[in-house]
């Protein structure tokens, strides 16, 4: 068995930033385990620009953004095992300590075990599949999740089809609408089940509007034709109950259906390890140090909750790296008072869900998403029943993350606090 202070599962943007940050905090003994044959994760197939505005104050493509972190990891001399699949994470019962046992496998080392003082989960997410969406019809070739198509086009140089219908207006779907168009395909329509887009507004402008691709909100795919190859797709308008409205069917001949209908944090390893997961985000429930329900196991990036911007992933991962470093050096403050953040009235969840007022950093970014489109509403923060801040936002939408900053000093003024509540309020402080 090999021993490391810190094992990071996943070498995408989250894992890379966590590694660099832990190293900056003085942890020497770090291993990144990456299942692909290179570092960078999903960024390697995201060849569009727009990454890094917050982190680097310039717009980079995915590979460029990844390269900046890969270079740092390389300069730090952090160990990486590529092409290595983590099979299992468990608490190392043999040593009787709180060390973690990570079982992994690759071609050259076979199956092997590593003992780690701390583990950072950074496995990312996967796309919701056609099957999970329960779209009726045939099951031919030509149905891809947008990310799979993105990999085929951008990394392998192959075209999945020439006439395309896209279901779901998540960012990858919008980006792929433009990408397929630029490569000569005809993108006939983007259908979105919800009455609002799941993607960033800028992507609707520069990926759809620029190319005259129609976006049909409140529409879904109700049939897929073709035994061996997709030959047509029927979409229909949906009502408020999101069920198709008879008589609104429109049939599009096409050879490809791309699906961009949501991402799901990939937590099979976390589940196997016994990490408690949130039923809302499908990611681990964490406290202010991004520590999961298992001591010494931290999580960051899309495995924790699906982010809209990679910059926020990097920020969050850097925090996870710092907290893991603290844990490795000082252990866990098990008995510190912990309070819960309640998310209500439009706030779907918060990350973190728990905070320790005496242990938290001086400032803590709490990220969340809203459940609907809100115009001219405020994000209100309550310490028990006392409203401590109310920040007006012109527009909030489920496709974009929101955040509030909690200050340790401010919390210190409420030593008997029982819980924090974050909610969306209409003007004047009325609840929705």
């Amino acid at each position, binding site marked *: 068995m090999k021993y490391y202070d810190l094992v990071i599962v996943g070498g995408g943007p989250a894992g890379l930033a966590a590694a660099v940050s832990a190293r900056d905090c003085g942890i020497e003994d770090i291993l990144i385990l990456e299942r692909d044959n290179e570092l960078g994760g999903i960024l390697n197939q995201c060849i569009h620009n727009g990454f890094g505005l917050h982190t680097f104050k310039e717009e980079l493509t995915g590979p460029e953004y990844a390269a900046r972190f890969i270079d740092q990891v390389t300069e730090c001399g952090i160990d990486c095992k590529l092409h290595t699949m983590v099979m299992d994470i468990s608490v190392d019962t043999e040593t009787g300590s709180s060390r973690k046992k990570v079982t992994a496998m690759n071609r050259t080392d076979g199956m092997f075990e590593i003992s780690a003082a701390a583990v950072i989960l950074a496995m990312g997410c996967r796309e919701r599949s056609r099957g999970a969406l329960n779209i*009726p019809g045939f*099951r031919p*070739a030509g149905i891809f999740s947008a990310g799979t198509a993105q990999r085929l086009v951008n990394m392998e140089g*192959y075209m*999945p089809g020439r006439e395309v219908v896209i279901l779901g207006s998540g960012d990858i779907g919008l980006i792929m609408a433009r990408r397929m168009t630029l490569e000569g*395909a005809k993108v006939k329509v983007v259908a979105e089940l919800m009455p609002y887009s799941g993607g960033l507004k800028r992507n609707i402008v520069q990926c759809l509007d620029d190319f005259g691709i129609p976006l049909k909100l409140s529409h879904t795919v109700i*049939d897929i034709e073709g035994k*061996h190859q997709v030959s047509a797709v029927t979409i229909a308008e949906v009502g408020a109950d999101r069920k198709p409205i008879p008589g609104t069917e429109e049939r599009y001949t096409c050879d490809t259906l791309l699906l961009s209908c949501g991402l799901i944090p990939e937590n099979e390893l976390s589940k196997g390890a016994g990490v408690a997961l949130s039923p809302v985000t499908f990611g681990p429930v964490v406290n202010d140090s991004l520590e999961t329900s298992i001591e010494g196991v931290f999580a960051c990036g899309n495995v924790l909750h699906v982010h809209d911007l990679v910059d926020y992933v990097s920020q969050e991962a850097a925090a996870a790296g710092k907290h893991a470093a603290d844990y490795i050096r000082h252990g866990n403050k098990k008995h510190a008072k912990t309070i819960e953040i309640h998310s209500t009235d439009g706030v779907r969840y918060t990350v973190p869900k728990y905070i320790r007022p005496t242990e938290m950093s001086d400032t803590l970014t709490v990220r969340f998403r809203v459940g609907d489109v809100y115009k001219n509403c405020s994000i209100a923060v309550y310490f028990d029943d006392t409203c401590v801040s109310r920040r007006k936002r012109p527009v909030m939408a489920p496709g974009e993350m929101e955040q509030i900053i909690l200050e340790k000093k401010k919390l210190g003024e409420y030593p008997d606090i029982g819980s924090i509540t974050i909610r969306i309020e209409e003007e004047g402080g009325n609840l929705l």
Partner: protein
Amino acid sequence: MYDVAIIGAGVVGSAIARELSKLCGNFCVLEREEDVCCGTSKANSAIIHAGFDAVPGTKKAALNVRGNAMMDALAKDLDIPFRRNGSLVVCTGEEDRGTLETLMERGQKNGVPGLRIVERDELLSMEPNLNDDVICALFAPTGGIVCPFDMTMGFAENACINGVSFFLDTEVTGIEKKADGYSLLTRRTDTKASETIDAKIIVNAAGIYADVFHNMVSESKLHITPRKGEYLLLDKDAGTHVSHTVFQLPSKMGKGVLVTPTIPGNLLVGPTAADVPDREAVNTTQAGLDFVAKTAGRSVKNIPLRQVITSFAGLRAHEDGDDFIIGEAADAPGFIDAAGIESPGLTSAPAIGELVAEIIRKKLSLRENPAFVPVRKGVLRPETLSMEERNRLIAEHPEYGNIICRCEMISEGEIMDAIHRPLGARSLDGVKRRTRAGMGRCQAGFCTPRTMEILEREVPMSIFDITKNGFGGTIIVGQSKEA
């Protein structure tokens, strides 16, 4: 000239082929799809029925019970994953108790062992997630689950190594009677090239098309109605929601909606039963999927339908006479039907194979094949090995250390095995059926490009010719910047 040509490489055609290969002779199987197990055999409940459902005295009843009894030995010989998890027919109203008792008596007449009525308390301890209003159930300990892909592959691969020729992508377009047998007119699915194949005996195991072939040679017409069954398959997280196969009391339109664990560990819910005019209509429908979701709750509560990972539909070959039609057509000597094989067809397949091979043995006076190899090894599953064994395997074959399908944890080695074995995989679905790569919760999102690379290299074949499930459906249509 072949001694026997079998039309159809589903589980029935393959089982017959394997039984025939125990005899000395020249045998072939013709299949219009690009792989074996592409019709009804691939889309069904994956159940080895105990045999209480069929009417005593019918072929269905006899062959079901016989087929069920053959499964233990077959599973061992052919390395088919098979588990007798037991089945329950659940009764939710006192007024239906009589029907349940009738079903038990019927099963006893059919010779089903171990049947008994289980009362509520015991029942709920056996299966805690049954609906609250259950009062009793018929328990059949011999009921089981099987992987229908592995079962069909087992028969087909074993037949293949014992000398049976398989012609895939080969559609039979006509049958002509000859003095000493029949000529089958065939057409390649991909090249459209036609060829004539002569055989002394034709076996009609054409599933949903069996009436079409039968009616080409016989005046005593058959009529098969495609009866669609739609299913929902749930994530392995839901796979232990029930441990037995849970049936609702059978109705006129079929066995109702069942809830069962599957061999790989998923939960399967279905099927519907709707007669459709189109023999190719293996599409799911909103109404069908809604019906399954709604009806399953009658016997099992709290089914986590949010965890559906895929849905599919299969067509049962329902013949008007409501029984299997097995044997030589009266007015077409040498033309042997295995037609109307609907449920319990999968269970009965081994017994149908035995029965049809025996008819042929007698007709052609075939001797036993002394070189017959009765065993077949399935795709090696590293997950079943200890860490030490697994590392020895990886040291020798590093590809077993490279995971391709993240959801099902399938290695490159297993995919290479699937490609290089007899009747090896040539398509993404072919790989999936043999290895489970792509069958998991992401539904091949991650592994598709990687599996394509392996097919391209190992078959070898052009990446542009790789299909999902046969000619006419390639995964990619060209290179970027071409159009």
